[in-house]
């Protein structure tokens, strides 16, 4: 029983954090669609979950979790989860996948639109008749209005496609947990930004961070994030195991808790910043938008809460392990 990340897992996250600090600064969010993409590819990020025979590192999702949290903390744009986490469980023999030179978007059950589909070389789309692999050339995309300028949404239609003879479930579970991990990272950055602002911004002659009401709101954010994170870690362990009967319940509990914690962080960060938190001039807005967009991605909190409810009320009170 060691429910804590290993040095290796934390070292991977540190490497990713360094790359993102250098190549995905807030300024990049205004100018680039896929900042730091090549640099992440260089450190093997897109091959983390791929098997060695596909030039990957064959890691488990849990090994990549702290690194994925860092991509949320940095508000990294682009179809990162789709390419690095979902694609490995949807596509075989796409040699360039590990190298990051193939960009993938997906439209699976629980999604309404395909994120960043305009950047994708390949799309995997679930239809009633199965999973369709669609190439950039044969897809028609219709942009849809979204809340997140760095995570654009598209309606997808196509004529030519290749039917994939496999289930979307393993990929969807992992993409959902990876998104939950990103939400924790987004929330932690929102909390850090709110704390930093509260330390310097003064009102009525005192730092607003010295007001008890502000302190308690920020403390509640810290608590929500601190108790959502273990559910995300547990869900990753559940999907990594060959058979865990509670896996879907664990995945949904993680996504719901992470989404709600990140949304709370967004609301409080706005409260603490006041009107300025609103403006285009502050970078805060990118993290706010990401908290909202990822909270809705791969099923919103209410849908996942409901799945947990049905499972628990259905009588499944088993706890893993």
């Amino acid at each position: 029983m060691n429910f804590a990340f290993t040095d290796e897992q934390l070292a991977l996250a540190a490497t990713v954090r360094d790359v993102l600090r250098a190549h995905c600064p807030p300024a990049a969010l205004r100018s680039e669609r896929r900042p730091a993409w090549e640099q992440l590819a260089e450190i093997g990020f897109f091959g983390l979950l791929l098997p060695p025979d596909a030039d990957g590192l064959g890691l488990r999702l849990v090994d990549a979790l702290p690194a994925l949290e860092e991509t949320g903390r940095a508000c990294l744009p682009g179809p990162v989860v789709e390419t690095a986490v979902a694609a490995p469980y949807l596509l075989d023999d796409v040699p360039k996948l590990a190298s990051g030179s193939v960009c993938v978007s997906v439209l699976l059950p629980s999604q309404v639109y395909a994120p960043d589909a305009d950047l994708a070389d390949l799309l995997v789309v679930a239809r009633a008749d199965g999973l369709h692999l669609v190439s950039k050339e044969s897809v028609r995309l219709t942009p849809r209005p979204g809340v997140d300028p760095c995570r654009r949404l598209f309606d997808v239609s196509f004529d030519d496609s290749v039917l994939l003879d496999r289930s979307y479930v393993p990929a969807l579970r992992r993409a959902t947990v990876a998104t939950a991990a990103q939400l924790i990272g987004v929330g932690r950055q929102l909390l850090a930004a709110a704390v930093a602002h509260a330390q310097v911004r003064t009102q009525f002659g005192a730092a607003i961070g010295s007001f008890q009401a502000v302190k308690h709101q920020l403390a509640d954010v810290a608590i929500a994030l601190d108790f959502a994170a273990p559910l995300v870690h547990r869900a990753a362990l559940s999907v990594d195991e060959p058979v865990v009967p509670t896996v879907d319940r664990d995945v949904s509990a993680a996504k719901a808790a992470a989404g709600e914690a990140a949304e709370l962080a967004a609301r409080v960060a706005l409260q603490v910043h006041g009107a300025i938190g609103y403006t285009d001039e502050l970078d805060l807005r990118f993290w706010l938008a990401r908290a909202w967009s990822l909270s809705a991605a791969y099923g919103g909190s209410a849908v996942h809460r409901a799945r947990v409810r049905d499972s628990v009320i259905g009588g499944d009170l088993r706890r893993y392990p």
Partner: protein
Amino acid sequence: MDLDFSAAEQDFRAEVRDWLARHVPDGLPSMDTPEGFEAHRAWEALLASARLSAVSWPEEYGGRNASLIEWLIFEEEYWAAGAPGRVTQNGIFLLAPTLMAFGTEEQRRRWLPGMAKADEVWAQAWSEPEAGSDLAALKSRATRVDGGWRLYGQKTWSSRAAYASHGFGLFRTSEEGRHRGLTYFMFPLDLDEVTVRPIAQLDGLPGFAELFFDGLFVPDSMVLGAPGEGWRIAMATTSSERGLALRSPGRFLATADRLVHLARDRLSRDDLSRDDVDRDFLAGDAGPELVDRAVRCWTDAEAYRLHTFATARRLMSGAEIGSASSMGKVFWSELDLRMHTLAMELLGERAGEAPWLDGFLFALAGPIYAGTNEIQRNIIAERVLGLPR
């Protein structure tokens, strides 16, 4: 105690409902775009032509002497009809009550009719970079010159200022005392000595602007009340901003109705989803929890409406709302945020569509402006409940 509208009140409601049914335009472009701003001005002019833009005003200024109750009826009908947001809001709901209470007859004659017709659109200019909820910390100043004053300094979060013709706010005219040195000015925005710098919002549109004053001349005729009285006058305005004036229930009632319809659609969408590929994933029907929350909001909107009827009655019998208006501010701003947050959840990845996103961004500001809800709760605790400062 009763809840019975008089025959006159019912006739008024019928007239308003009928006129709106025939004139309300389909969705205008955002009032924070140049064309949207003009479209909203045109709408206000049409509204004024039916003397419906400021029903509670005296007739000579373009109103109908409507009672508070009639005004509440108008608001219910206006928002229920899906009519556009009020580009004249700062003027009609913030400046006008101040002009009525503290202005001269000349000032009222000069400014109110144009305000009602949206010939002149007003921006509020309360905040400064170093003074958020803390008005008394204002630094912009006005210096006496022959026949008037010259304004210097900076204002921020000035709503509507990107396109408005005039603005109003407080400037320091003497250094004696944080409060006593402030004077209430109205001023034009189209002269060279004031620079308007729009501030883009989350939606990329300039809902606010920064104002830079470099000796803007303001004649004495545009000073509201006596020099040095600005603080007292502004407190009266902001309390009306926090209280009944700014936040009639009509808007929340309409939002609550739309929210309930949205929740019902969502329920049926979940039913549909059972027959397609989503089946096993969406087996969890998100309906009940969201529906419960939607109905709770609907009931809270009703509570706010009833509470407002009681408050209106108190005001009509000459009482003051005073600090109790802080309770209303906290209640409506958090209700509005809950409603729009729930709408975002119900829409999920469709949240970018529809009027809900703009409303959500607007609602997020609710707990912040007109005095943050933290400050409102302090006011309630100290002035209503009598707890120590």
